[in-house]
């Protein structure tokens, strides 16, 4: 630098001006411009020339006015520039859209513009000058962040849908299991799981002991099983007595007992018939089933609670993500009591699932507390706090109901502010965390206590909303016992704490100041949200992304738990119905329902015909009740026609089965043959189980399906970038086989067969490309085909065909077709389904979920490799229905995705395509 100064000094003064003229102001490294009032360029420095594709040297022809995307904008900006000049400032616009003509068409450039009028000695405007900075890249980045947020919003939305479905599947299953064990669901929620397990373990001990003692009567009875098998049953009794000591962790007891029950049932199945009293063997089986049901109860209940808990967490996350993209909510006067009541109502389901009671007290007397603000935001904030309190409430000993207290207080008869206190008894919050728990992404160090999940967003969001409303929130947490333990004792935080969140909000008539004057802020390199207070609430990308990644992390393990619970429950119900797990998952639910509906029809028919024998038997029920049973037979025959939506049929039949059971419960004993009544009850139970099967299967498939989308998103969020992959020669047969293998698990869960064919003869077509990208593309397409395959009638396996074809004996191109039989793709969507975020309008058919990313990603990858994907979808039947008919799209379609790729090394097509893509 010093040398240059020295050099500059050497230039004679008279030369400097000359040199400057030679160089010209165009040489300035900043994007400087000078235009005439009509916009014609007088000067443009190199960056501006490059930005606007002006000639590198010479006179910059053209007018800046021609570059504006919105031609009227220039006039407005010039006026603003003159107004700013009057204030001694220059105009600064962060986002002005320009259109620039280039050799390959027109492109959009987003510029940051600084502008000032240039005046002559008399004060007339002779031009305008300033700087242009190219901000296209930053805006693209911003758009990508927004797109990502939308993607995440979409995934969380599908997540919520699945959760709702799960809730619908789990609740009746829980009801059924509880009833089978002679319990009410409420009792199940509040009883320690271990007590239930112990009861049924003892019952099985008794049944097995009876069996063994029967076997000891003589050799004939003893011969019912091999000695080794009797020994196993004896050991099992021992294990049923000692499982608690073997597995110190209570939570594992159910799993261990389930494995034991499986083994015991295996041995019971080996009993030779006729050697032991039937009733004793039957009782052992029943006790085995009951214990298995009890072991299912606990994980089902945990899953149910988790689902209930996830729902508000996810919707808060979704709300949080979309706040910045939503229309601003109007401000109004809001009743605090109404909002608090609504928030409690929102949380009732969750509280119920955890057996927690929410107690509301309004201590404001005749005063009706009102605040000024945004209804939806306040509701979210209060709901978050109540949700938090319910979540971190501990179960108390038997007979004591856990609770959350919500109290509304006014500070005087003429209050200036209203207080909402939300109190619970449970997980402590250490004093040094009183502030930090309101920080975004922060989760209290004891917050993971007892397996609770969360995102660390709820409280931070609540605080922000309350501050926006001129209020605040504080927390205090103290040991609940009178006799406090020593603070330094290691078990100080093991005791229950009383935790109180106190919200303060100003009354509506108080001066509001400017705290709700909303404005949108723009954060470069950050996600932006509404900043309603003027103070920034931006979340930098890494922070936001890691919060989201954490949320999806919880989700991943949560899905693992759900998968196992659903699989075990499904296994049990399928076995009770005499079906194999695979058959239960693959058979169309309607077929199963129909089978058991018909079985119940037969059982009720038999009952009615028995009743018609004489007045004595007819008197088993009132005429009205017999009428009801006859009507029920009618409804069981016609439910298909009554209810067109298949998914509703199961729930309808469940309710009908319930009513039929109620009626049968009124049967006077001794009037009808016992076996006939018993058979009717069994048929009701079986139909009920069949109705549970369909939603459980749907949930199971949905959970299986949710994982790939979630884990892809999570991995992207955690790592932030994709791998840099080298180009290599890849065997297409190997690649496609691998993709099919990747999807085989998912195909299995849906009972779909993948049929792979290679029609390229003996050749092994090779392509040059990125292995992982191509694998993902093929996997996506196959995944898609499986997802949208319909299940077929009994005996017909649903399938997805994957075929590799070469176009000639010396092929230049290879084609892979992926075909399925199922959900149609309308012709007008052949192109659009490949657009990012687009989901076919029939794609939501039968609860299938997706993000609208898979196909777009696959197309991009194929294009990068010089190939393409096309789709065609036609009715599968020979006799096509009329296109105009309303049920045209209700028939199955054959859908074929054709993926083409140029063969490796051939005329360098891929390489150049790759190069373009990299450029």
């Amino acid at each position, binding site marked *: 630098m010093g040398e240059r100064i020295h050099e500059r000094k050497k230039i004679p003064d008279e030369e400097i001006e000359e040199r400057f003229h030679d160089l010209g102001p165009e040489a300035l490294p900043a994007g400087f411009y000078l235009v005439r009032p009509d916009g014609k360029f007088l000067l443009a420095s190199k960056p501006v020339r490059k930005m606007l594709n002006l000639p590198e040297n010479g006179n910059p022809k053209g007018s800046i006015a021609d570059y504006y995307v919105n031609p009227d904008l220039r006039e407005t900006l010039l006026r603003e520039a003159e107004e700013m000049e009057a204030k001694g400032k220059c105009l600064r616009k962060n986002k002005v859209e320009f259109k620039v003509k280039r050799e390959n068409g027109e492109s959009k450039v987003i510029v940051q513009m600084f502008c000032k009028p240039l005046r002559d000695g008399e004060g007339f405007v002779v031009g305008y000058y300033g700087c242009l900075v190219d901000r296209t890249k930053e805006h693209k*980045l911003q758009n*990508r*962040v927004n797109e*990502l947020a939308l993607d995440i919003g979409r995934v969380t939305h599908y997540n919520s849908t699945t959760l709702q479905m799960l809730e619908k599947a789990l609740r009746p299953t829980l009801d059924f299991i509880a009833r089978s064990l002679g319990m009410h669901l409420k009792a199940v929620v509040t009883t320690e799981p271990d007590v239930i397990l112990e009861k049924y373990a003892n019952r099985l001990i008794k049944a097995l002991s009876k069996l063994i003692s029967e076997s000891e009567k003589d050799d004939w009875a003893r011969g019912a099983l091999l000695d080794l098998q009797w020994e196993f049953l004896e050991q099992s009794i021992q294990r049923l007595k000692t499982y608690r000591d*073997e*597995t110190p*962790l209570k*939570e*594992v007891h*159910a*799993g*261990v007992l*389930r*494995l034991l029950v499986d083994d015991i049932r295996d041995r019971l199945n080996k009993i030779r018939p006729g050697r032991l009293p039937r009733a004793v063997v039957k009782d052992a089986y029943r006790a085995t089933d009951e214990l298995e049901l009890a072991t299912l109860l606990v*994980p089902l209940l*945990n899953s149910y609670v*988790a689902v209930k808990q996830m729902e508000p967490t996810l919707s808060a996350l979704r709300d949080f993500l979309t706040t910045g993209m939503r229309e601003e909510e109007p401000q109004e006067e809001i009743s605090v009591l109404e909002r608090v009541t609504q928030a409690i109502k929102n949380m009732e389901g969750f509280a119920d699932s955890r057996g927690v009671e929410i107690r509301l007290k309004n201590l404001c007397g005749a005063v009706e507390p009102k605040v000024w603000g945004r209804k939806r935001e306040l509701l979210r904030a209060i709901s978050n706090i109540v949700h938090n309190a319910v979540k971190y409430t501990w179960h108390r000993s038997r007979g004591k109901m856990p609770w959350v207290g919500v109290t509304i207080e006014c500070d005087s008869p003429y209050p200036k502010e209203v207080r909402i206190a939300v109190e619970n008894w449970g997980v402590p919050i250490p004093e040094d965390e009183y502030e*930090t728990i309101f*920080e*975004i*992404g*922060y989760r209290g*160090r004891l917050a*993971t206590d*007892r*397996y609770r999940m969360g995102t660390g967003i709820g409280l931070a969001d609540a605080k922000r909303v309350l501050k926006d409303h001129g209020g605040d929130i504080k927390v205090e947490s103290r040991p609940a016992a009178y006799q406090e333990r020593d603070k330094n004792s*290691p078990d100080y*935080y093991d005791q229950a704490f009383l935790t109180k969140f106190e919200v303060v909000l100003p009354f509506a008539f108080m001066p509001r100041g400017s705290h709700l004057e909303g404005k949108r802020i723009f954060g470069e*390199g950050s996600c932006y949200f509404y900043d309603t207070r003027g103070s920034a609430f931006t979340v930098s*990308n*890494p*922070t936001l*992304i*890691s*919060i989201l*990644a*954490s949320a999806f*992390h919880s989700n*991943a*393990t949560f*899905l*693992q*738990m759900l*998968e*196992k619970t659903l699989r*075990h429950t499904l296994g049990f119900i399928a076995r009770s119905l005499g079906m194999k797990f695979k058959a239960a998952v693959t058979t169309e639910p309607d077929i199963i329902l129909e089978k058991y509906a018909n079985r119940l029809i037969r059982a009720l028919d038999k009952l009615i015909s028995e009743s018609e024998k004489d007045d004595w038997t007819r008197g088993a029920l009132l005429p009205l009740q017999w009428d009801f049973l006859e009507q029920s037979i009618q409804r069981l025959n016609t439910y298909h026609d009554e209810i067109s939506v298949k998914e509703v049929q199961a729930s309808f039949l469940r309710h009908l089965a319930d009513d039929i059971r109620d009626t049968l419960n009124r049967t006077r004993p001794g009037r009808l043959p016992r076996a006939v009544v018993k058979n009717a009850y069994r048929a009701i139970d079986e139909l009920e189980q069949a109705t549970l099967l369909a939603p459980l299967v749907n949930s199971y498939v949905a*959970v*299986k399906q949710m*994982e790939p989308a979630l*884990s892809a998103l*999570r*991995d992207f969020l*955690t*790592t*932030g*970038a*994709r*791998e*840099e992959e080298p180009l290599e020669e890849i065997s297409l047969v190997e690649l496609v086989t691998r993709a099919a293998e990747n999807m085989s*698990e998912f195909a299995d869960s849906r009972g779909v067969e993948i049929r792979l064919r290679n029609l390229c003869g003996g050749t092994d077509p090779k392509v040059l490309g990125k292995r992982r990208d191509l694998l993902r593309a093929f996997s996506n397409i196959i995944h898609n085909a499986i997802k949208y395959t319909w299940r077929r009638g009994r005996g017909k396996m649903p399938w997805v065909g994957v075929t590799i074809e070469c176009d000639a004996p010396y092929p230049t191109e290879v084609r892979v077709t992926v075909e399925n039989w199922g959900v149609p793709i309308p012709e007008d969507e052949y192109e659009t389904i490949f657009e990012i975020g687009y989901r076919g309008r029939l794609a939501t058919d039968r609860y299938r979920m997706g993000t609208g990313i898979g196909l777009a990603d696959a197309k991009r990858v194929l294009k990068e490799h010089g190939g393409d994907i096309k789709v065609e979808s036609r009715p599968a039947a020979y006799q096509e229905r009329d296109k105009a008919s309303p049920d045209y799209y209700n028939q199955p379609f054959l859908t074929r995705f054709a993926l083409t790729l140029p063969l490796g090394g051939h005329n360098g097509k891929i390489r150049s395509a790759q190069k373009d893509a990299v450029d």
Partner: protein
Amino acid sequence: MGKFAQRKRMLWIEDGKRFELVEQMAPAYYSGEYILHLAEDVVDGINHLRSAESGGKPYDVVIVDIRLPPGEDKVWYDLYKRTIHSQVESQLGLILLYWLFEKDLKGNLADFRRPGNPRAGKDIEERLTELKHSGVTPPNVEKKTVAVYTVEHPPLVCPHLNYLGIEVYAQKTIDTPDDILLKLARAVEGEIDGFQCPKIEAGKFWVGGENV
């Protein structure tokens, strides 16, 4: 009795096991092959490892999660708090493994960057230095007894595990078998294959640069 005498010892350091992962413990208990001990945070894990060492009964298998809460200890809590906004970055399980096996870090972790966090490797170095200054010495654990079982996918953890020489790894996914703990234990004991971390070299794997 004979079976009990032969039982091996397994430690699982994992905070989700009581709830989401509870079903995965039953086969380990039921098999009767292992005495399974459980630790729910880093400090709990260290205490278990220390008492095993002092009792002369080291664990045959130690299964470690990557995202772990710190537990009640100021040093570990402070380390956790530094990256409190991000469970992804806190990765206390990873810090625990470095502390156990690379306390006096000889290598340079600068290459372990990610576009989301170019300082990811440096951050581990700094936190290890803090641990070193705390003066607490790590318990002795044999590296070959360790397996990692985490939600994190291979690109995020395997460069570290390769560096540390920890060979057995499994990712938690929806399709993880119920008896995964037994499988990992067998992999640690060299009885079965299929649980190796892919060889991923740090620094060459990720594109540096812009952060989306």
